[in-house]
């Protein structure tokens, strides 16, 4: 325990009324690490992601960031801690432009709150061109509603890239994507990792997880049943754990 882990979950339980969605769950995410969070439907993966992003509060247990105990009470708390979530159905506003979406909630303004539009547009252009290579987007003024699923996720990732997030939470990000868009997204995760950004990838596709993750946490019925480094496991073993537990 010389350097504390970036994020740790300590004995977390979460109940929704009578239903216990998470039971005594503990795992950690290190800096620059990609963790695959696997498990059957209803295992509690999305609940875990929502907990880390501050949307749910744990019934018991706590989170720590950099070794310090923290309690996220809302989404902006976790945003301040450097956590960005990319949802199954991406959280973007269709009727606004790419630029406005990237900066939504964190607009660059003068001291009266007026938007520095030109500056935001330039940054959006820059991030889209250099950090997020996604084809078909020709202008940051395009309305997000006119983009494909993969392009939308690219915008969400651009948001994470620009705001120098430390942890990216991806909850089934590839469920609506083409093969090519999936490939691009997984490459993004690796590129961010090279810049020391950690990711938590929730997916039902073990091959995708195996392709990019350094470590796997397998959940079943709200608790952790397996936690293993990539070097110590195989796709077959992972599949067995997901299916049989």
């Amino acid at each position, binding site marked *: 325990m010389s350097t504390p882990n970036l994020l740790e979950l300590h004995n977390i339980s979460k109940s929704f009324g009578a239903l216990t969605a998470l039971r005594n769950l503990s795992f950690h995410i290190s800096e620059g690490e990609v963790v695959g969070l696997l498990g059957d439907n209803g295992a509690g993966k999305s609940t875990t992601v929502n907990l880390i992003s501050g949307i749910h509060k744990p019934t018991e247990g706590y989170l720590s960031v950099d070794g310090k105990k923290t309690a996220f009470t809302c989404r902006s708390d976790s945003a301040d801690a450097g956590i960005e979530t990319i949802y199954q159905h991406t959280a973007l506003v269709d009727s*606004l432009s790419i630029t406005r979406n990237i900066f939504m909630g964190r607009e660059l303004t003068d001291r009266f709150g007026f938007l520095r539009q030109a500056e935001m547009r330039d940054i959006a252009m820059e991030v889209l061109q250099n950090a997020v290579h996604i084809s078909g987007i020709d202008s940051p003024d395009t309305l997000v509603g006119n983009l494909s699923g993969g392009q939308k996720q690219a915008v969400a990732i651009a948001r994470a890239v620009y705001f120098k997030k430390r942890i990216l939470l991806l909850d089934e990000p590839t469920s609506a994507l083409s093969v090519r868009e999936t490939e691009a997204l997984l490459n993004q995760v690796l590129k961010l990792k090279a810049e020391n950004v950690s990711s938590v990838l929730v997916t039902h596709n073990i091959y995708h997880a195996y392709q990019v993750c350094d470590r796997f946490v397998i959940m079943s019925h709200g608790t952790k049943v397996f936690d293993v480094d990539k070097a110590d496991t195989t796709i077959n073993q992972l599949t067995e754990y997901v299916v049989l537990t």
Partner: protein
Amino acid sequence: MTPILADSAAPRSRTQRQSFLKQIMSMPAGAILLVFVTLQIVCIAGALLYPDDFRYLSPQNLTILMKAIPVLGCLALGAGVLMIAGEFDLSIGSVYTFTAILMASLVGAGVSAFIAAPLGILTGVMIGLLNGHITLRFGLPSFIVTLGGLLFWRGAVLLYNGAVQVRFDPEPIFTSLFSGTLFGINAAFIWIILFVVGFHFLLHRHRFGNHVFATGGNRVAAEAIGINTNRVKLIAFAIAGGMAAVAGIIATARVGSVQPGQGAGLELQAIAACVIGGLSLRGGRGSIVGVFLGVMLIHTITDVLLLLRAPGFYLDMFIATLIVLAAIFNHLIERRGLA
């Protein structure tokens, strides 16, 4: 690299092929602008060709137009911001009358209009906040809550004042501030232009406006990113109520009295102006310029029909048709945007 270039070139050439007309139509208030300009050209041409029969360009007529537009304009701006945030306010017509009567009777009791008018606006803001609070606290459709508000404040007018008209005799400076003229332009019209510019900057150039669009466009997403959507909506409700009171002040200063029944139906006209101006009934889309053009369009058509001495029901039928056409058009645009 080559396939990526080919990919990104395809949509661009598609844009290039778009005609000038299509480009205008795809601008936020483009379609309404086109309709408005066309109507103006027809009216002006008509007025030049038949100056004696169609007095559209006569100073009297232009003055009537400039005096009529600000009242509906203020109501529609407030209602528009709220609609973009994803909520409705049907009570603004009643609030408009209630706050105007409150102000006029305060002035009648010897209070300065410069104190009574801000009190009227404050009352409008408080009513808006009340509407918003009930709507958000209980998760109700604002349509129902403010329908209640419409009836409640209409009744409150009669309770407070009875069915009699109230005279409004403010200081002369107050009157000239709202219904005088400056360089031949009606003061109320200058006010509405200032409001349009102010609202444009608030909604399209300010952080708050961005949050209004986000809240109305995708509330879940806005919340996920950390925007306090309840607060945004509450402020929008307050703006709608406050602007209803401002409309009341402008109307009262112009006429010099308040009729207890004067606001009836104005809330629907305001929403009509918003829809004609390109606002989506589902929220998240639209522009302030569009709303203002919607207001001007309604008043231009009213005016033209009056000049042509057409019976009043034509007006209602005309506006009704316009609303439905505008709604269909907006819907098509939205669907294309989501495809």
